[in-house]
């Protein structure tokens, strides 16, 4: 249970930033 909590919490912390990188790259590529 504890591992699941930490896993979810880490995803919540890191994934938005990672996904944001992809989103920003996509936007930039589209603009180019």
């Amino acid at each position, binding site marked *: *249970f*504890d591992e699941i*909590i*930490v896993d*979810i*919490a*880490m995803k*919540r912390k890191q994934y*938005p*930033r990672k996904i944001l990188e992809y989103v920003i790259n996509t936007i930039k590529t589209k603009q180019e």
Partner: protein
Amino acid sequence: SVNPMTYEAQFFGFTPQTCMLRIYIAFQDYLFEVMQAVEQVLVKKLDGVSNCDISPIQIRKCTEKFLGFMKGRFDSLFGKMEQLFLQLILHIPPNILLPEDKFQELHSYSEEQFQLLKEEIEQLQEKYKTELCAKQALLAELEEQSVVQARLRQTLTLFDELINVGRHHGTSDFRESLVSLVQNSRKLQDLRGHIEREGA
């Protein structure tokens, strides 16, 4: 009901309860280790005493009695400390937002709004493409117009040159000169006709 303290785990990288469990186990181990060391010292001291009627078993019973009491107090005190830790130290107050979530308060977008925003972006992209195509078409037409204008000007120049040629050979206005030529030739014809009649 367990409060998973996920938001705290997001900040600390571990769940506060796990942290407290780790501290509890470590402290408890120390308590046991120290008690064990105490008992060993006492037993060793007894070895040195002649016709001592205290056996190691009896020492062990004393140790268990003392440790039993200490363990009870330890758990009670640790429980209270744990509560304070979880409330005051390893706790993110409900009114506090972690930096990585600051967007959440700035832009709470519903699904519909999000879709609308994406559609608007798509439309703008199409519109931008259209405008760019229009620009290409306009530039192409300007280019074409330049060519046509050059061609037309060339034609006009040609006409001008023709006139200049005429002028160069003494006929100021080519058209006038041609008219006068026609008139003169008609006069010549009349004259010739007249002469021929006279001659006849």
